[in-house]
């Protein structure tokens, strides 16, 4: 029996940068096949080549035994290939149902869109996710009104609506929580039984081991290893992904902060989706924010940073009440904010790495005049301390991979010497080696006296990094877990406990 899809020695360059030097994989019919590798190793690029959105330089893609020459995504779709885009492919202004059937609208005899049929089909597809969809996800909703996980669900439904034979999920679970992932995997299982083949890309190895039959590992644009999941283990796979770099995380040292006076105190903070949030944070402390996604953790961080309004409550820094209505005021008070959504919140696209790093420093230091030469040495020092890989400070930020970009954005705030660092799920889509660098860095910062507020959608990160975790539900703190109580079990329990 021929494989559903085979890629052989695929090569792709972007200008001078080689994205793929020798990518290969074989996807058997009816299997779930993992594609893993560090940031920037070329997974998304390979996926897009298969789906027709990126043009390959050389190499073969064979589908059902026939070589495929693709010149557009439409042709890939005609060949039964469908891609879940890492950055999604939804039209924000359009409704969920219109997005799902965009380009393949059911028509009536006159060639008009058959709205009834479209709504019915969309509802039927969405129905499968109803238990985990959350509020506001229905076929008439506008995509721009949805939360990130809901958008991912819509993108999944959109892919499934195309009745594909081969589906590529490029980090389709990145914004999903447990229950959503579980349901998603169940659906994959059902389809797999019907002979659909899946390529599954994720940085969450636990998920890979939970759902995949085989694993292809890529490194630096090359396919380096193939494993049968049942015959291997995580350590082996990780080693194949990163080469020989060690990246284990030691748990955070348990430190007693009770003696120090609080740097940041939040009393009864209220906002659009926050209710009566109070806590305090001490110098050197890494305070985690846990819970299911979208329970107000992100909003809290943005509110503290002045990017979202607070309607009530008080914020004190070093005992003094402060009013932070704009990010500018926050920067001037010594806050730093690192978002997980780089493209939207951080990247100054098309501008140099230097500018991307320096911009906050100029604001924090109230600079009027700028002498680029003077800052450059200091910034490259900071960037190097983070193990950032970049050609030169003058290169455009877009030339870096996501992980390296994120390091630049962290460096942006290190340059301002922040007293409170707000981390808003900062490791989204970052590979394990980069993550390890990042954790080391945060820990060093804290050790040097910074106070860190850290929200992560992955429990393991909270457990690995935090001294204390506040668990959120529906905009409130429902539990506070001290270092000793920080276990996966306790976190999950606290997150669901009061939700149930």
């Amino acid at each position, binding site marked *: 029996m021929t494989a559903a899809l085979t890629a052989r020695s695929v090569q792709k360059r*972007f200008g001078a940068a080689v994205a793929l030097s020798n990518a290969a994989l074989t996807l058997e019919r009816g299997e779930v096949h993992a594609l893993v590798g560090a940031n920037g190793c070329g997974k998304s690029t390979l996926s897009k080549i298969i789906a027709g959105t990126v*043009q390959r330089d050389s190499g073969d893609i064979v589908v059902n035994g026939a070589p495929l020459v693709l010149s557009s995504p439409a042709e890939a779709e005609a060949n039964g290939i469908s891609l879940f885009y890492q950055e999604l492919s939804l039209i924000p202004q359009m409704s969920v149902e219109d997005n799902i059937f965009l380009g393949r609208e059911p028509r009536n005899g006159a060639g008009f869109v058959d709205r009834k049929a479209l709504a019915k089909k969309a509802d039927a597809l969405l129905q499968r996710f109803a238990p985990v969809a959350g509020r506001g996800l229905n076929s008439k909703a506008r995509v721009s009104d949805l939360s990130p996980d809901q958008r991912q669900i819509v993108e999944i439904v959109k892919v499934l609506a195309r009745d594909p034979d081969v589906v590529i999920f490029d980090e389709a679970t990145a914004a999903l929580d447990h229950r959503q992932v579980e349901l998603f995997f169940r659906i994959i299982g059902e389809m797999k039984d019907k002979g659909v083949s899946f390529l599954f890309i994720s940085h969450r190895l636990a998920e890979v081991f939970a759902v995949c039959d085989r694993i292809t590992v890529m490194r630096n644009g090359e396919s380096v290893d193939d494993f049968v999941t049942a015959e291997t283990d995580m350590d082996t796979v990780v080693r194949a992904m990163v080469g020989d770099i060690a990246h284990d995380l030691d748990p955070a040292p348990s430190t007693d902060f009770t003696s120090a006076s609080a740097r940041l105190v939040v009393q009864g903070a209220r906002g659009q989706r926050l209710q009566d949030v109070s806590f305090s944070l001490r110098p050197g402390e890494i305070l985690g924010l846990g819970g299911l996604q979208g329970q107000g953790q992100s909003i809290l961080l943005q509110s503290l940073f002045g990017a979202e309004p607070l309607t009530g409550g008080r914020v004190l820094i070093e005992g003094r009440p402060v009013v932070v209505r704009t990010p500018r005021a926050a920067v*001037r008070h010594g806050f730093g904010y690192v978002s997980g959504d780089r493209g939207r*919140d951080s990247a*100054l*696209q098309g501008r140099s790495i230097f500018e991307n790093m320096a*911009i906050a420093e100029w*604001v924090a230091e109230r600079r009027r005049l*700028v002498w680029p030469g003077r800052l450059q040495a200091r910034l490259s020092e900071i960037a190097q301390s983070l193990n950032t890989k970049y050609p030169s400070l003058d290169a455009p930020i877009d030339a870096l991979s996501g992980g390296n970009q994120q390091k630049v954005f962290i460096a*942006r705030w290190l340059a301002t010497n922040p007293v409170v660092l707000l981390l808003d799920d900062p490791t989204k889509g970052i590979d394990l080696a980069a993550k390890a660098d990042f954790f080391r860095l945060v820990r060093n910062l804290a050790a040097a006296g910074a106070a860190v507020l850290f929200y992560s959608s992955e429990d393991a990160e909270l457990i690995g990094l935090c001294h204390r975790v506040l668990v959120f539900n529906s905009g409130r703190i429902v539990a506070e877990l001290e270092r000793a109580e920080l276990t996966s079990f306790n976190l999950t329990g606290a997150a669901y406990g009061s939700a149930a």
Partner: protein
Amino acid sequence: MERFRRLLTEPLVLASLAILVLLGVGEFLSPGFARGGQIARILTVSAILGLVSAGQALVVIGGREGIDLSVGALISLGALVAGNVMSGENGAIFSAILAAGGLAFVIGLVNGMGVTLVRIPPLVMTLGMMGVIQGGLVVLSRGIPSGNAAPALMTFINRPLVFGLPGVLFVWALVALAMWFILRRTALGYAIYAMGANERAARLCGVRTGLVRTLLYGLSGLMAGLTGVCVIGYTGNSFISVGDQYVLPSVIAVVIGGVSLAGGTGGYFGVVLGAIALTLLQSVLTTLQLEFWGRQLIFGAVLLGLMLLYGRTKRLRV
């Protein structure tokens, strides 16, 4: 080869090449075209376009589909106000500059507030403002261009000052220097680029994007008002539609100069070259013995050709 191609698609290089080619064509068509005196005169006309394009460039670089269509009406307004304040008196030149620049600056700020506070798309806001200013001009002047330029101002714009170059060219050079300084040596300049590249990210870095953007439209107004002063210095007296002919050329000079209409890129030196190239093109076309329609066809085709070389948007399939 790759380097050569990249060099060729560099806007500064391209605009310079275009200028050289146009000079060559001009000299070929009418020997003596590329002489000093004529070049100085072309530069004078370019300077007027270049000054208004400076403000246009700032607004475009600032992003969010920035564009200022009200510059033409503001030039007319600046010329009218300056002409009335001066009334041919050399002593009143400074107050004329202050009055014309100040009024245009304030109107520009109103544009900026419409764009930032009310969030009206710049094209629409400045288009609407253009209509209002034109109406205001009719009310102020009843279609009659009272006022005229002071002799000293006319000499400054039209007559050689040093090295056979008129004074307005030195003003232009000064403005170019100031633009370079603002964009490359001040935090404000980098904030403008940051805002043009990604407004939300800039705000999260502490840039007061609303304020900066409002200021950009104010500056664009200011430059247009000052351009109006130059225009009345050039023509001696004004009429209410004197600025209309600068609106789209100011946008084109910016584009030819390598500033993407999407914002966040480019610099003023390219725009300087763009303004010169555009003026030169019109000048060469004037000297061609063609029917008007033939000149138009060539003008349109050259514009399209220049844009084809580097004014293109990104491919979707890479």
